[in-house]
């Protein structure tokens, strides 16, 4: 019999709340995290809006000197990990640290550090580059710093698959525990890419919403008038634990991870494959891994970025997998509230799915006003629903054609 893997802790640093409870309450209320960018002057940029994390003080979670040596994405990850460990009530002195791992996803890593240091290079020359530049910038440093903080000496890696990164991280962690290489893994994602260079780059791709006059309705997944995604930032961390390990210490269990699938489109660098065929295969693969029928899924937390292509093809992919049942299941995109956390999106949405099966509450897609004939499923418009949820699926699809799906089951 396969080892079972459950979620026993959740830590969140998000644009709509810091800490699991504040975040979940915001999700239930349909809170909107999008506003004008405050971190730098957006004069000359076609997009001036994003979902920034507000009121985050790194020194509340870590030593001030340590915080200075971390890029913002790592600060988010360390803070969220601390919150997740607290929530799990794990006693770090009582666990086997060699079987305690960390797997984190990040799309771009320490981009703001890279930009600052490059400016220094151009202005002051190579001798003024900080010795902390490389260790602050590299994408794997969040996983490294979390391990130092928690003394986690087991499996440790970083997954980089663009916007699928942290669903891959959660799925990989699930498999590492299932096959017996670790008992506890701190997993999820972290991203802090609301920077001048990234904003300009995503703008050049025409990927971002330019709804600068109405930031509150800019992120509107599946709505006919959607015009691109809104960047978000933050970190969401889950504590995954082998079931008996969790039971033996009387841990609170949010849900069980039962299926993971990943595929690649092998089609185009940024555009999804026709009809979302790669995404459909990822969902099927996760269902097969879980050993369940499509009609057992109650809720899908969609990738739902609010770009014209993603939402159309993801809808087609869901219909391909679920056939007529697609119209009966609930599908929502919480990016309507949080913006798109890129490499951290899967972590945050994995947390949403865990909380959905734990609380029997399905979050809404806010800003949904105009029906699109190509997006014709039940997107839980504007108001969440109290409904029993046994199986929830989380989809993440990334540039490069990466597709990842996980399935979380209510633990009873």
């Amino acid at each position, binding site marked *: 019999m396969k080892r079972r893997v459950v979620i026993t802790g959740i830590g969140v640093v998000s644009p709509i709340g810091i800490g699991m409870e504040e975040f979940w309450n915001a999700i239930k209320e349909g809170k909107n995290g999008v506003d004008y960018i405050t971190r730098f002057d957006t004069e000359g940029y076609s997009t001036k809006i994003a979902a920034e994390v507000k009121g985050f003080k790194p020194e509340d979670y870590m*030593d*001030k*000197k340590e915080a*200075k040596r971390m890029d913002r994405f790592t600060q988010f990850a360390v803070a969220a990990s601390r919150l997740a460990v607290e929530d799990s009530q794990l006693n770090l002195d009582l666990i086997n640290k060699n079987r305690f791992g960390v797997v984190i996803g990040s799309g771009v890593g320490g981009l703001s550090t890279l930009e600052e240091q490059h400016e220094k290079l151009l202005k002051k020359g190579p*001798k*003024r580059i*900080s*010795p*902390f530049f490389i*260790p602050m910038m590299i994408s794997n440093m969040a996983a490294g710093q979390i391990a130092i903080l928690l003394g986690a000496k087991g499996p440790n890696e970083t997954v980089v698959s663009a916007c699928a990164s942290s669903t891959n991280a959660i799925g990989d962690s699930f498999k590492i525990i299932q096959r017996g290489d670790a008992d506890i893994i701190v997993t999820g994602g972290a991203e802090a890419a609301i920077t001048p260079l990234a904003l300009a780059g995503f703008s050049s791709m025409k990927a971002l919403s330019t709804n600068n006059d109405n930031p509150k309705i800019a992120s509107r997944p599946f709505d006919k008038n959607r015009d691109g995604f809104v960047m978000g930032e933050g970190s969401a961390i889950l504590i995954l634990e082998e079931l008996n390990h969790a039971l033996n210490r009387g841990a609170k269990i949010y849900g069980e991870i039962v299926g993971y699938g990943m595929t690649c489109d092998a089609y185009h660098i940024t555009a999804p494959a026709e009809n979302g065929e790669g995404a459909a295969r990822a969902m099927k693969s996760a269902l097969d891994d879980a050993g369940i029928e499509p009609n057992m899924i109650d809720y899908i937390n969609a990738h739902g970025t609010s770009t014209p292509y993603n939402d159309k093809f993801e809808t087609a992919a869901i219909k391909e997998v679920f056939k007529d049942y697609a119209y009966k299941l609930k599908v929502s995109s919480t990016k309507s509230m949080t913006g798109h956390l890129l490499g951290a999106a899967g972590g945050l949405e994995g947390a949403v799915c865990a909380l959905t099966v734990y609380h029997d509450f399905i979050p809404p897609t806010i800003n949904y006003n105009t029906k699109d004939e190509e997006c014709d499923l039940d997107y839980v418009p504007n108001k969440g629903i109290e409904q029993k949820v046994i199986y929830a699926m989380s989809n993440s699809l990334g540039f490069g054609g990466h597709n990842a799906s996980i399935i979380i089951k209510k633990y009873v």
Partner: protein
Amino acid sequence: MVFEKLKKIIAEQLEVEEDEIKMESSFQDDLDADSLDVVELIMAIEDEFDLEIPDEEAEKIKTVKDAVEYIQNNMK
């Protein structure tokens, strides 16, 4: 004067209280700096005192006193 100015830089770079910083303090042994912290501290000293400290000289600076003496002997 050099010591007072240096104290401020060290306090800021290494996140320590100014009154913890003594002439005899070793950066790594007493002020909890690692080797990368020291490299960055030397850069800050170069900026603040308008100096260029060659690597082989920088490697010899291990205490606050070493830094004060180097600065006093090399200030432009």
